[in-house]
């Protein structure tokens, strides 16, 4: 296994709604917390990759953090912004250019479903005007087809939400910390059939920063380095079924998640059976179900049994979204992918408190998916 890059410090600003604190300021707070965690000063940081979707250009935060002259590159890559920042930081260290750097993601979105910029997304005005420019519709349609093909039940969707909110209730950084039952999830307002209000995550706020170092220097900063064994970002190929698509080809392609997952396992030299826990993109309850199979952790349809049997719970065989996922944390786009990595670092260090996965997990996996058909995967180990 390659162990050239380690995460030596992590910082997070609470997810949810923080009135009076801008998205950028939440990013700054996350950076300060990450520096404190690694025991480094801002002036020690040689380079940064950072981004947000709706809260400003990341490089302007140096005016608050200190004008040290470091190399700071803004990243804008939709839902994979955080993953792309991490990918870039990882490869900057691997290439030998720098020894110590930081990946930053933060955001702050207006309330309600994401307002889609149809022109920015390369779509005609007619698409939004006709009522088709809603990411929520795609999620409803993808899981509806999947349930039809593979026999996933409504109850299983409800159980995914129940687990997310229960895990969120044990996470002091989470937005939604009140447990709900499967039945409450099923009975809440139907937003985009078969998905209800409690099966969808909401756009939110938050910030995450991760400090990366050459693995052979990690001991300078931490006695619990977490090694980054793979960081991969992939875009869609012909025939995949993606969000905000006026049409899809008759030919079927499995999508960017399958591609990024395979590439990440190849890079790390391990397989799905070696993963002890995973944070999988759960924009809605159905996404978590489908992504279990797309990432190679089960066959299509096996999720029905696994979730009904509690296998994806924190104490189960294969814990998924131990911090409550997007469902309990909300989705500040720029920060969301890095939140998953933050959680895995805590779990691998054994510092996840009430939601700690038992039996000293050694290898953990993250996966993001988003518009317009992009996916990012990381594999971490201790």
């Amino acid at each position, binding site marked *: 296994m390659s162990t050239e890059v380690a995460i030596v410090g992590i910082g997070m600003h609470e997810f949810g709604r923080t009135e009076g604190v801008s998205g950028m300021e939440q990013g700054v707070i996350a950076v300060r917390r990450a520096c404190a965690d690694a025991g480094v000063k801002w002036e020690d940081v040689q380079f940064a990759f950072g981004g947000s979707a709706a809260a400003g250009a990341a490089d302007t935060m140096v005016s608050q953090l200190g004008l040290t002259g470091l190399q700071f590159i803004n990243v804008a890559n939709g839902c994979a912004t955080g993953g792309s920042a991490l990918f870039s930081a990882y490869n900057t260290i691997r290439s030998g250019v720098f020894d110590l750097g930081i990946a930053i993601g933060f955001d702050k979105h207006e309330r309600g479903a994401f*307002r889609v910029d149809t022109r920015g997304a390369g779509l005609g005005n007619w698409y939004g*005007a006709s*009522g*088709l420019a809603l990411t929520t519709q795609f999620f409803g349609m993808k899981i*509806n087809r999947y349930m039809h093909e593979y026999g996933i039940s409504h109850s299983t969707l409800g159980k995914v939400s129940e687990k997310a909110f229960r895990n969120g209730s044990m996470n002091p950084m989470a937005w939604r910390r009140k447990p709900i039952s499967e039945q409450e999830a099923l009975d809440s307002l139907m937003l985009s059939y078969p998905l209800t209000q409690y099966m969808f995550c909401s756009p939110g706020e938050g910030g995450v920063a991760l400090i990366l170092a050459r693995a052979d220097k990690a001991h300078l900063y931490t006695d619990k380095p977490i090694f980054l064994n793979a960081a991969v970002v992939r875009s869609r190929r012909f025939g995949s079924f993606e969000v905000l*698509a*006026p049409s*899809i080809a008759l*030919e079927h392609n499995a999508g960017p998640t399958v591609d990024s997952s395979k590439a990440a396992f190849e890079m790390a030299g391990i397989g799905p059976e070696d993963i002890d826990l995973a944070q999988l993109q759960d924009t809605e309850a159905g996404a978590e179900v489908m992504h279990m199979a797309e990432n190679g952790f089960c066959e299509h349809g096996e999720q029905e049994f696994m979730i009904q049997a509690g296998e994806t719970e924190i104490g189960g065989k294969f814990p998924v979204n131990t911090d409550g996922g997007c469902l309990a944390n909300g989705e500040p786009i720029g920060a969301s992918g890095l939140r998953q990595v933050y959680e895995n670092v805590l779990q691998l260090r054994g510092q996840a408190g009430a939601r700690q996965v038992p039996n000293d997990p050694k290898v953990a996996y993250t996966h993001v998916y988003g518009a317009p058909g992009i996916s990012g995967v990381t594999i971490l180990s201790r």
Partner: protein
Amino acid sequence: MAQVPVTEGVFTWPSETPQLIGSRCVACGNHMFPVQAGCPKCTGEKTEQVLLGRRGTLWTWTVQGFPPKAPPYAGDVDPKTFKAFGVGYVELPGQIKVEARLTEADPEKLKIGMEMELVIVPLSTDASGNEVVTFAFAPVA
């Protein structure tokens, strides 16, 4: 009240038998909707305009249960009068799956695989008092 299409070049209008306007790749025959110049399948740079089939089968569907944000949405967003509408992908044999509003919004009446046909439906009224219309698919009775 005059009727005007939500946009030009996406469906034939006015027409007794409206059709969606797409493209076909000259090199590989791949179909695209809406019209575009390059082919995502073979990277070919030459496409020709084609009218897509009017009938197909429902590949998947959902129901838009809350008013979309306006803009971009041009239809009714008043929570008191908003009516849920169906959205789905209809598979046009030998061509492509196209996304559209559905005239049916009752989950009990929507079934994957059912026959659907293209229709034109009212969407809103514009500033000049014209009725703006868009395309949708309706179950074949």
